[in-house]
């Protein structure tokens, strides 16, 4: 580890699932770096391994899945192979996560305030209950929950989706985590509520100086929130770059295709030619194509792409591409 400002460094992480039908390389040798206060985006379509990356960081991979290689350095400490007790002391405290479904990630039989206070009490053995309650109410206020005193006592089903997601954010940030992993945090929400939650996350990130890993399939959210972006496809990182660089000069054919195929709400588009689309579909993870994983869908594919898997090549200014077109 070199840089003091680096909070998380993932090196050559492999998370494999050992199923009856064979080995699924859900996360296949990826490296990611997160600096203090930075918002990192991981984008990709379903099954590309973005959620498995976040679960690997949180050490929440369950059998038949296993971290098969690599290291996850969080503040210089390798989380791979760490004891359960040690991980528990980090999780929710220095390292926290927001899930997609605010409906299923809260316990339905406890009042929401109590659930948030639990996180606080668990990590601060000497804190009094009344003090914890006070802190939770303050946090509820900060994340924009109206009438926080009353809301402390209500159960999850009595709250709307947007409010539940605010409770989740309050829970994730109450211990002032150094790193927040948000896995599709707004996918289940309506657009006007999504805009509120994204703004809230950005404000909190500035206030608390938390680093965020934003996992999403929505390129709009990436463009709005992230500083640096990783594009994943079938378990591999295909391209990584600064957000402006990635949107202005995408280099990988997959990124290029993705950006071209999304319709945009802010401009009128010509309907005559149809929408650009990437042909085919994502490969079966049990039977990956030889060579570049994207080659069966790539419009530029040549013979060499079917044979050799390209390396992730640095094309300058922190822009890396895994494509045969680019060489060091």
């Amino acid at each position, binding site marked *: 580890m070199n840089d003091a400002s680096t909070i998380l460094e993932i090196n050559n992480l492999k998370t494999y699932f050992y199923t009856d039908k064979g080995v699924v390389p859900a996360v296949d040798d990826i490296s990611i770096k997160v600096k203090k206060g930075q918002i990192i985006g991981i984008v990709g*379509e*379903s099954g590309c391994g973005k959620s498995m990356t976040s679960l690997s960081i949180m050490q929440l991979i369950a059998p038949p899945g296993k971290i098969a290689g690599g290291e996850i350095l969080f503040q210089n400490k390798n989380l791979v192979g760490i004891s359960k007790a040690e991980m528990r002391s980090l999780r929710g405290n220095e390292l926290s996560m927001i899930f997609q479904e605010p409906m299923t990630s809260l316990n339905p039989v406890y009042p929401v305030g109590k659930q948030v206070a639990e996180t606080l009490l668990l990590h601060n053995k000497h804190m009094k209950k009344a003090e914890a309650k006070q802190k939770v109410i303050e946090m509820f206020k900060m994340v924009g929950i109206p009438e926080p005193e009353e809301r402390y006592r209500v159960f999850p089903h009595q709250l*709307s989706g*947007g*409010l539940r997601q605010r409770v989740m954010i309050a829970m994730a940030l109450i211990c002032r985590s150094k790193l927040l992993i948000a896995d599709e945090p707004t996918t289940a929400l*309506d*657009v*006007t*509520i*999504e*805009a*509120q939650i*994204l*703004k809230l996350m950005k404000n909190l990130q500035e206030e608390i100086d938390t680093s965020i890993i934003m996992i999403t*399939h*929505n*390129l*709009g*959210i*990436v*463009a*709005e929130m992230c500083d640096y972006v990783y594009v994943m496809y079938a378990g591999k990182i295909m391209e990584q770059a600064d*957000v*402006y660089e990635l*949107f202005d000069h995408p280099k990988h054919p997959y990124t290029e*295709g*993705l*950006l071209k*195929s*999304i*319709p*945009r*709400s*802010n401009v*009128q*588009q010509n*309907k005559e030619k*149809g*929408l*650009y*689309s*990437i*042909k085919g*579909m*994502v490969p079966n993870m049990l039977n990956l194509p030889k060579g570049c994983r994207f080659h069966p*869908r790539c419009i530029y594919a040549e013979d060499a792409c079917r044979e050799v898997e390209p390396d992730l090549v640095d094309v300058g200014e922190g822009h890396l591409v895994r494509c045969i077109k680019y060489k060091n």
Partner: protein
Amino acid sequence: MHKIQELGGDDVNRVLMKVRNVKTYFPVEKGMFRKKSAMVHAVDDISFDIYEGETLAIVGESGCGKSTLGRTLLRLLDATEGEAYFEDQNIFELTSKELRQLRKQMQIIFQDPFASLNPRMKVTDIIGEPLVTHESMNKKEKDERVAELMEVVGLRKTYGNRYPHMFSGGQRQRIGIARALALNPKFVVCDEPVSALDVSIQSQIINLLQKLQEQKQLTYLFISHDLNVVRYFSDRIGVMFVGKIMELGPTNEVYDHPLHPYTKFLVAAAPVPDPHERSKEKLILEGEIPSPINPPSGCRFHTRCPYVQDRCKSQEPELKQIEGRMVACHYPLV
């Protein structure tokens, strides 16, 4: 026949469907004896026209009644009040026999390609079922037609003997589209047809829907919450909020110059896939979506509207024609 007034239309386009003052309410049942304690005003007095060959999008947030509206117009749900004419037939007054005939002309594509296909049926039988029930085709005719439909939607003919679980989301949605088209309908309700799909698959399905519309002169009612897709795909757009239409007009005009404050904030809320847009101050609507069980008095949007005035709290605005559009606001943004 009733005398029907034209709504916000021009003389060039032929009206395929006229919707007048449609209300669909659901009772809320409470307690042991299922006493009806309140009503959900899912669709609350909605009127508009659908022109032949167009794509009319209905957008809005969850619970605004857009799916209920789509299903009411196909009579998959019963309207509480109002009239809906499909080529001069009031579909709410049809007998079940007449309705069966009409169903050939009106079909639906569902959002969830995982839940809308029977897992125990083979693809050929799923696509062919409408042909058997409505056209009483024999096996040979049916198989030919199914093969043709599969080709049209881009599925390999050899897939006919497979079951739905063997397909990906995009392919399943193609099966659903083939089933909807089996009877050569004129009018198709697309209820969030691409919301469950990945970006790269989404554009394939949108292109397919567009191609089919051109080939078969289909009329779509396109229900969606995705403002990016709607802008691309629709000709006109109706914006719904808690059971009401707030604004209805040509898509590009509505996006570029919204007249209703809700439309303005809704359009602004959609994240734009361009980091250079970030510097612009983002318009963010405060508050939550009100409940359709007990909608706010006056204008339903007044509890969230940043431009609210006293009149909005007591008097409900009517849907009026302004600048070639229909808008329900006392103080439109002209």
